[in-house]
C-alpha cells in the first residue's frame, strides 16, 4: 500500500468519529447561517457613515513564515535507524528520566519515504513531558524566506513568546512558546534549527504525555537553552551526512519569496499619483506585505501577496490549469498573457449586502502569482463596507504589472 493510500486510510478511520446530525438539520442550519449573515451585513451597511478604507496588498504565503522550497528527496543516509534516532534524542537531552523512547529511521514504518524522527517522554524530576523531534531538508540557499527561519505570524499562531537567534555560523534557531488551547491547556514549545547546509531539526515538547489531558506539569520540561542545545547538536550530523541534493550542479531552485520591504518598494511605484502610504511597524513575513493608503480622502489597507514562479514548466502548467478552472471570481486575460481573477466578497454575491473585500489575483505568463486585496478596516475580520481607496482597476494595475516578474 502506498504512502498516500495508508494515510488516506488513517484519515478515513478518524473521520468516522465525526458527528452525524440529521441531514435536514444541516440544511436548516445553513439557511439560518445565511439569514444571520445577511442581517449582520445589513447592520454593517447601516453603520458605514465613516469610511476607513484599508487597502491591503496581500500574497498568501506560509503562515509560519517562509517559502516552501524543498530539497529534492533521496538525501537520507540509509544507515539512519530508529534506534539511532531514539538514542541520539536521548543523548542530546539534559540528565533526567527517559521513557517510551522510539523513532523512525530512513525507510521505516507504516508510512515509508519520510525523513527520520524520534519521540520519547522526558522527566526532569518535576513530571514527564512528551518530546518529539523531526528532521527535514530545505533548499539552498537558506534565506530569511526559508520556512522555519522566522517566528510564526502571531495572528495565525498565537504565541506567549518567540525568540529568533542567528548563530555565529549563520544557522538560525527559532523557539516559539505557543498559547495553550483554552480547553486542554496543553502548552507546546517548539524549536527549529535551520543550518546553512539546509538541515532542519525541530523539537516539539509539551507539558503532558500526549497532546491531551491530563497535564503533568505547568510547562514543558526543556528550557529554551536546552531546546536550542538539542536541535543544534552535532550529534545529528550523520542524519545530514549526504550532501544536500539541491546543491548539485544544475539543480533548479524555486525563486525565493521576496521580503516585505521589496514588495512594498515595488508596490509603491505602482500606486496612483498622490497616494499617501503608511507601512506601520516593520514587517517580517516573506512574500507578503501590507500598507495603509490614503487617496482622495479615503484611507484603506492594501495587502499584497507574492508567490514566486514555480521552478519547472510542468508546475506552471498545473497552476495555470487550476487557475483557469476557478469559478470563485470573474476571469479575464490581459494581452500579454496574464490571467486575472477579480473577486468581491462580502454581501454582494449573496444578495443585497455590501462588499467587504476586493481582490485581484493574477497569474503572470511566467507563473508568478500576485494577489492584491483591499478592505476597509485594520484587519479583515473587522472590514467595513464603503468605497475603498483604490478601485478594482487600480488593484488590477498593481497586480498585473510586469515589475513583479523576476
Amino acid at each position: 500500500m502506498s504512502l498516500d493510500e495508508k494515510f488516506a486510510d488513517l484519515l478515513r478511520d478518524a473521520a468516522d468519529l465525526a458527528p452525524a446530525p440529521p441531514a435536514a438539520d444541516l440544511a436548516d442550519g445553513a439557511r439560518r447561517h445565511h439569514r444571520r449573515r445577511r442581517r449582520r451585513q445589513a447592520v454593517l451597511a447601516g453603520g458605514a457613515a465613516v469610511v476607513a478604507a484599508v487597502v491591503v496588498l496581500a500574497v498568501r504565503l506560509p503562515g509560519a513564515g517562509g517559502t516552501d522550497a524543498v530539497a529534492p528527496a533521496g538525501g537520507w543516509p540509509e544507515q539512519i535507524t530508529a534506534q539511532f534516532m531514539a538514542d541520539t534524542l536521548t543523548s542530546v537531552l539534559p540528565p533526567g528520566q527517559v521513557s517510551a523512547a522510539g523513532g523512525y529511521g530512513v525507510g521505516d514504518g507504516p508510512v515509508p519515504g519520510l525523513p527520520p524522527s524520534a519521540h520519547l517522554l522526558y522527566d526532569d524530576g518535576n513530571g514527564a513531558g512528551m518530546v518529539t523531534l523531526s528532521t527535514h531538508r530545505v533548499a539552498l540557499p537558506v534565506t530569511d524566506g526559508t520556512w522555519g527561519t522566522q517566528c510564526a505570524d502571531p495572528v495565525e499562531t498565537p504565541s506567549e513568546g518567540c525568540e529568533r537567534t542567528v548563530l555565529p555560523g549563520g544557522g538560525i534557531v527559532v523557539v516559539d512558546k505557543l498559547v495553550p488551547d483554552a480547553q486542554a491547556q496543553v502548552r507546546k514549545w517548539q524549536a527549529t534549527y535551520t543550518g546553512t547546509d539546509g538541515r532542519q531539526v525541530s523539537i516539539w515538547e509539551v507539558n503532558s504525555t500526549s497532546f491531551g489531558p491530563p497535564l503533568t506539569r505547568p510547562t514543558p520540561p526543556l528550557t529554551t537553552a536546552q531546546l536550542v542545545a538539542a536541535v543544534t547538536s552535532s550529534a545529528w550530523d550523520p542524519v545530514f551526512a549526504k550532501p544536500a541534493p539541491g546543491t548539485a550542479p544544475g539543480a533548479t531552485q524555486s525563486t525565493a519569496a521576496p521580503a516585505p520591504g521589496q514588495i512594498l518598494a515595488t508596490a509603491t511605484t505602482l500606486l496612483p499619483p498622490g497616494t499617501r502610504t503608511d507601512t506601520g511597524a516593520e514587517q517580517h513575513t516573506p512574500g507578503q506585505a501590507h500598507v495603509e493608503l490614503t487617496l482622495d480622502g479615503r484611507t484603506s489597507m492594501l495587502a499584497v501577496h507574492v508567490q514566486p514562479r514555480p521552478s519547472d514548466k510542468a508546475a506552471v502548467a498545473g497552476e495555470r490549469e487550476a487557475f483557469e478552472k476557478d469559478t470563485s471570481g470573474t476571469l479575464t486575460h490581459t494581452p500579454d498573457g496574464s490571467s486575472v481573477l477579480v473577486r468581491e466578497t462580502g454581501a454582494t454575491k449573496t444578495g443585497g449586502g455590501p462588499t467587504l473585500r476586493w481582490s485581484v489575483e493574477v497569474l503572470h505568463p511566467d507563473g508568478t502569482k500576485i494577489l492584491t486585496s483591499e478592505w476597509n478596516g485594520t484587519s479583515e475580520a473587522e472590514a467595513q463596507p464603503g468605497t475603498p481607496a483604490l478601485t478594482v482597476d487600480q488593484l488590477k494595475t498593481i497586480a498585473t504589472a510586469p515589475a513583479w516578474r523576476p
Partner: protein
Amino acid sequence: MTPDFGEFAAARGQHLIRTAFLLTGGDAHLAEDLTQEALGKLYGKWRRVARLDNPAGYAHTVLVNTFLSHRRRRSSTEHVTDTFAESPATDPDPSLRLTLLRALGELGAQDRAVLVLRFWEDRSVEETAHTLHLSASAVRSRSARALTRLRAVLGADLDDLARS
C-alpha cells in the same frame, strides 16, 4: 432543472462535516458550525452554484476557505472533543483515532488543509495548491513535513493506527 439545495445538503452534508472534523483536528462542534457556515454561503448563491460542473467540489473549497478564515479571525481555541459519533462495535480502541486527530490539531491550519485536501479529498497537488494559494512545490513540501511531524508525534501509535 436546478437541483434542490436541501437535497444537496442532505447528500453532501455528512461528507462536509467529516472533512471539517479532520480540518479542526477533531472538534465536533466547530466542524458542524463550519459546515453550516459553508453551506449557508452556498445557499445564498445556490442558483449559480447548482449550475457549476462540480457543486460538491466547490462546496469543499468553500468549506476549506471558511476554516482558514475562521483561523484568521480567532485565536487558537480549538479543542479535540472527547465525545464522538457511535463507533462500530468492532472498533477495538477509538482512542487511537482520537490521538491522530489531536496530532492533526497540532499542525498549522494550512498544513492540515494540505493533508486533508491531498489525502482525504484526493485532490491533485496542483488543485490543492490553487485552493490554498500555494505553489505546487509548497504543497509537496508541506505534505512531507506535516507527515513527518505527525509520525514523530504519534510515535508507536502510528503503527497501531495503520494496523487497526
